[in-house]
């Protein structure tokens, strides 16, 4: 009979133990029973904020719920273990069940540390640690006007950004004289502070909270210096506390400041009990990052199997993006070594701070700090960890080489094969090269799948890309995102070629710059580019359009089309509603209200399209471009004209913006929204651009979307007047149109944009590239060429003639059949 390992804790460390267990020989001799206290199986707590912004729990799970059973592991979630009986070798749960163990592994993790402040029990005070915590904050937000976050560390800043994005003015309260005191020095912290303040986050330093005031629920904070802060929602993020209560109850040694004491083999004093993760103290400290905890899990699996592996400490370098600002510290970041030399670069105007700590002899890099820009992070970390001898001008690392290769002359090629590239999964350069070379993983997603590198925090992804590029180059090959086999250019390069050479058709383009006959990829890309550059009627290029654009309608089951007239802002008169009804009735069309606040008419044969549109156009409608990679709708809420909560007239602004950009062709579809207040009934933050009224003007959000991977839009600029808002929108949309890859929506484009949101703000708001005016002019030019393409078609007999099923017969397609449903018709199955 197999012996039983009981694992208490199904967090990230617990899951890693399961994963390593399932892949080890232990499965032959042991069964594994796992307990989790939370409702969901182990999830990616590092990316908890993405749950806040809307990612569903299932996507954050480290393994699907079924994974455990498939690997012979029994997982019992939502069952808290309350006691351990070491004599009997049993544990008992809150469900009053008792289980036997042969080996007990404690991976109980940590909880948020809540300081004993008077009034902390008041309603409206939260921590930021689990799905549950976030659900509770979300529920409370609509009641709140102003938020505060206690704790200016990593998690506190994330929490602050999350509530700020929910529309609450937010203050960060830090006890220390600077932000992120464990990672940053005073200068770096000051730069970070000014960055945060740009985002309207208030930062209060040197503040010790004495009391939380309020009657039942929180109304504010009182500090020991006598000052006060109004807040009706408080998130506490003042560090973590190891969960050692079970160990304590079982009589195991715990550290005086908390944490189960284990040796480097993860052993407690009881030979049958081990502990790993954030709940332990090893080498006299708690290791609060995921990578060392993963390492502990791996060490323990080896040791249970009879090995003698040891956890020898871990590199605590970290890099993260806080509110659009890169912050990294690596090696000995706050070094105080005697004789240590520093190289410092500071640019307050751009919000950049970089510091390198060099050994006394100047030969080695000990560590450093990067704020504002951290592209060099991965390489610098490698230089520290591999004790590489520094080049002659180490300052080139942070200043950029002058007239040579970047990175002070050290590139991924110089790293030893043993260099750990992915520290979460402990994957070396050699293993990655092996995957590329032997297993043919010639794309980053393949490398990820094959080696698991990059599946943790994702921080090593740029390095994986560099390694692949370096390898390909060494083979005389290249990795480029060219369009397809017919064009050796990227979309952006084609954009420039078409514009500069004034190319007006696909045959001209492929003759001059491509080869072959083209295909279903490069033809629509070219069609989109021609439309984005010249804005001519797209029917001129009908055979290079995807079928929706070729027939200016959305193809549906049975090859029939749907018709969507534009209803700007979702506002429509009764007379126009009647016309839609009459047309639908006359042509027997199925009607449905769309998600974009308009009306879709389904079931039109291709030959009926021109006459249907003629009737709609005569009644004052225009094409809704529902078929195009172009502006769809600008959704609006009721706004201040009718709504008692409205701060401003969202409908008028939505109508204005939709009419401005109607017909604008882009790399992918574009959706917008305008809400009249923070209640956000127009769901503008799930759009490519969203505008939300404040008491001082309009907040402009960009790069959100719904769909398969929902993403909330980011705040680009706040409290704008209408003219400035439209100006920034012009710039933003034109910049996107010019630089995005084919079929890349704004959200994905931003995630791939080097420099991210900070860079986008620089370009759009600060005009750092000096192209603002040019972008505005290009947009004006496009807008001036707008015409309703359906109006053009119905008034032009030659274009109208293209809308028929057979070119040699007026017969209709007999394949189209319908069946009734709820008083309308739907297509019959083929």
């Amino acid at each position, binding site marked *: 009979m197999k012996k039983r390992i009981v694992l208490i804790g199904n967090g990230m460390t617990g899951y890693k133990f399961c994963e390593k267990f399932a892949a080890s020989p232990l499965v032959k001799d042991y069964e594994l029973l796992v307990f989790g206290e939370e409702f969901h199986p182990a999830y990616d707590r590092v990316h908890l904020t993405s749950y806040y912004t809307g990612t569903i729990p299932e996507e954050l799970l480290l393994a699907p719920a079924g994974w455990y059973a498939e690997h012979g592991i029994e997982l019992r979630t939502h069952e808290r273990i309350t006691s351990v009986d070491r004599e009997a070798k049993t544990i008992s749960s809150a469900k009053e069940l008792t289980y036997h163990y042969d080996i007990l592994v404690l991976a109980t993790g940590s909880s948020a540390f809540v300081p004993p402040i008077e009034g902390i029990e008041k309603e409206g005070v939260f921590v930021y640690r689990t799905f549950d915590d976030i659900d509770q904050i979300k529920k409370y937000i609509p009641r709140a006007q102003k938020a505060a976050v206690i704790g200016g560390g990593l998690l506190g800043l994330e929490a602050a950004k999350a509530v700020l994005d929910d529309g609450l003015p937010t203050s960060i309260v830090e006890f220390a004289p600077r932000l992120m005191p464990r990672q940053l020095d005073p200068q770096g912290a000051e730069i970070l502070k000014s960055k945060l303040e740009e985002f309207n986050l208030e930062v209060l330093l040197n503040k010790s909270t004495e009391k939380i005031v309020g009657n039942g629920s929180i109304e504010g904070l009182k500090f020991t210096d006598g000052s006060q802060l109004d807040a009706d929602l408080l998130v506490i993020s003042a560090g973590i506390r190891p969960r050692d209560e079970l160990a304590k109850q079982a009589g195991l040694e715990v550290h005086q400041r908390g944490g189960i004491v284990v040796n480097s083999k993860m052993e407690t004093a009881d030979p049958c009990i081990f502990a790993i993760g954030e709940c332990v103290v090893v080498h006299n400290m708690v290791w609060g990052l995921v990578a060392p905890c993963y390492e502990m899990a791996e060490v323990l699996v080896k040791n249970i199997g009879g090995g003698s592996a040891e956890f020898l400490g871990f590199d605590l370098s970290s890099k993260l993006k806080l509110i659009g600002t890169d912050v990294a510290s690596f090696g000995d970041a706050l070094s105080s070594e005697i004789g240590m030399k520093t190289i410092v670069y500071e640019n307050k105007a751009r919000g950049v701070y970089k510091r390198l700590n060099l050994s006394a002899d100047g030969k080695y890099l000990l560590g450093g700090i990067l704020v504002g820009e951290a592209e060099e992070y991965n390489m610098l970390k490698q230089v520290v960890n591999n004790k590489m001898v520094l080049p002659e001008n180490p300052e080139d690392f942070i200043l950029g080489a002058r007239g040579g290769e970047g990175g002070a002359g050290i590139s991924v090629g110089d790293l030893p094969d043993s260099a750990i590239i992915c520290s979460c999964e402990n994957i070396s350069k050699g293993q990655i090269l092996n995957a590329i070379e032997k297993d043919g993983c010639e794309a980053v997603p393949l490398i990820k799948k094959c080696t698991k590198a990059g599946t943790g925090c994702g921080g090593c992804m740029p390095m994986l890309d560099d390694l692949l590029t370096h390898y390909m180059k060494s083979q005389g090959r290249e990795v480029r995102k060219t369009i397809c*086999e*017919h064009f050796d250019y990227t979309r952006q390069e084609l954009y420039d070629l078409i514009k500069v050479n004034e190319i007006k058709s*696909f*045959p001209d383009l492929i003759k001059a710059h491509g080869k*072959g*006959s*083209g*295909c*279903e990829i*490069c*033809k*629509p890309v070219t069609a989109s580019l021609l439309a984005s550059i010249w804005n001519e009627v797209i029917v001129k290029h*009908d*055979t*290079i359009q*995807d*079928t929706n654009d*070729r*027939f200016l309608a959305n*193809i549906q*089951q*049975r*090859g029939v089309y749907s018709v969507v007239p534009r209803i700007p802002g979702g506002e429509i008169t009764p007379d126009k509603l009647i016309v839609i009804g009459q047309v639908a009735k006359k042509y027997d069309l199925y009607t449905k209200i769309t998600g974009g606040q308009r009306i879709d008419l389904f079931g039109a044969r291709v030959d009926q399209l021109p006459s249907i549109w003629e009737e709609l156009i005569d009644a004052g409608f225009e094409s809704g471009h529902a078929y195009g990679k172009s502006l769809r709708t600008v959704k609006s809420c009721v706004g201040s004209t009718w709504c008692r909560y409205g701060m401003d007239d969202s409908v008028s602004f939505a109508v204005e913006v939709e009419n401005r950009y109607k017909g604008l062709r882009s790399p992918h579809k574009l959706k917008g929204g305008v809400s009249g207040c923070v209640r956000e009934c127009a769901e503008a933050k799930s759009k490519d651009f969203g505008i939300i009224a404040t008491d001082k003007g309009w907040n402009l959000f960009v790069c959100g979307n719904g769909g398969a991977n929902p993403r909330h839009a980011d705040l680009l600029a706040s409290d704008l007047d209408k003219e400035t808002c439209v100006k920034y929108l012009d710039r933003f949309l034109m910049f996107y149109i010019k630089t995005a890859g084919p079929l890349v929506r704004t959200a994905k484009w931003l995630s791939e944009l080097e420099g991210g949101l900070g860079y986008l703000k620089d370009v759009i708001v600060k005009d750092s590239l000096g192209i603002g005016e040019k972008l505005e002019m290009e947009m004006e030019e496009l807008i001036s060429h707008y015409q309703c393409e359906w109006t053009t078609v119905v008034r032009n007999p030659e274009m109208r003639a*293209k809308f028929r*099923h*057979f*070119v*040699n*017969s007026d*017969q209709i*397609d007999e*394949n189209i059949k319908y069946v009734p449903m709820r008083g309308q018709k739907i297509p019959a199955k*083929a």
Partner: protein
Amino acid sequence: METQIVTAVKEWIKAAAIENFPENGGAAVLINGEQIAVFNFTNEGRWYATQNRCPHKGEMAISRGLTGDADGHPKVACPFHKRSFSLEDGKCLTDEQYQLKTYPVKVEDGFVFIGIE
């Protein structure tokens, strides 16, 4: 121009005048009650014809697909789910289980003719 296999053709049926077909694109014709997709590769001076029905979902839509080439071989991509078919032998290039019937095409006196077996 490719040599068309004409031996099996029983009858050439006049489909329509050349100008009825879009340049560098496709259109459907009705021949003896059958829907046939005809493709005009204007730049290359070639014509192809296949069944109009997509073998994947049974939609009458192949003629509305985008034409082009893969490695120099002519093809069409179905507008519904983007499966690509060779216009030389009708084989699906992305999913082996699907196959289009192809027809010989000839052009005479400004008219397009389809060869029926």
